[in-house]
């Protein structure tokens, strides 16, 4: 079967589907019909026109199309939207080093911080103040006899 034949059969099928459909009454059309019509007893058709039209069951083809459309709609709108800024997006094609060897060797352990050494002391850090030992017996006894109870 050629493509043209298939297209023609599909078109005829669609024409028949459209022909089998009855047009649905719209809300805006009903008042206009009441205003232009001569005054007469309301007939059943007017009352029929105000009543909601019974829904026509879709054909198998329509059902198939609707199912496909519904599924496509759900797939097109994901529940979670992920936004990736272009600047942060990983650039493909740039080779990267393995994670384990990305840092240079020696930087993973503690790194000593240089501290400036103290300057050379200009004088002794501490002095021990002591009195010279008494050299004469007089100095010795003078210190001894100067002791008093605290």
């Amino acid at each position, binding site marked *: 079967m050629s493509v043209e034949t298939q297209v023609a059969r599909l078109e005829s099928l669609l024409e028949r589907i459209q022909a089998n459909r009855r047009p649905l009454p719209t809300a805006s059309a009903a008042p206009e019909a009441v205003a232009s019509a001569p005054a007469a007893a309301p007939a059943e058709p007017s009352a029929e026109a105000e009543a909601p039209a019974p829904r026509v069951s879709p054909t198998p083809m329509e059902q198939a199309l609707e199912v496909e459309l519904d599924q496509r709609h759900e797939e097109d709108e994901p529940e979670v939207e992920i936004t990736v800024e272009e600047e942060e997006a990983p650039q493909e094609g740039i080779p990267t080093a393995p994670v384990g060897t990305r840092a240079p060797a020696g930087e993973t352990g503690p790194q000593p911080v240089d501290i400036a050494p103290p300057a050379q002391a200009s004088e002794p850090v501490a002095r021990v103040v002591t009195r010279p030992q008494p050299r*004469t017996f007089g100095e010795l006894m003078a210190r*001894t006899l100067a*002791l008093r*109870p605290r």
Partner: protein
Amino acid sequence: MAQTSFDPGGFFEFDLRRGAVTSRGGGRVLVLSDAVVAPLVAAAVEGGDLTAVRKLGRQLGEAATAALAGPAADTPVEEVLGQAAGVLSLFGWGRLGVERWGDALVAKLDDLPRLDDEHLGIAALLGGLFSSLAAEEVACVPVGDSGTFLLVDPSVAQKVWKWSRGGDDVAAIVGRLAPEGA
């Protein structure tokens, strides 16, 4: 020229014809047994008058200073104490040693004769000795029972003696003392 260390040679002169003994400098001395001297000293302690013992100490001090080239106050410590120790040992009062505890001075006398229970006779003897050497009054307070004496000014001797009788040792007593005005 004066000797820098104690020379015991010729210190005593025994004159057998006269029956007298003199020490260097001409003073007559008596050689007595400690068994005789001890009750005399004990009686003096009980009577509260150790003047005679203190006077004996002064004579020993004078014998020591007589060998010095100058005043004891201007003489090196070792030389003065060496002369004093020599004289003491020559008269049979024991072997003198001296310790410095900071500013405090502690005299230790080994092999000393036991004259009274609390060594108050020896304390009086040493007090007279050091008073002569220092040319001012010095009190020696017994500390403990091993011939240890603390040299102090007489004005604080009674308090130090109380501490000593209360059981304080040399370290505790010295810790309670401080230079006047400090």
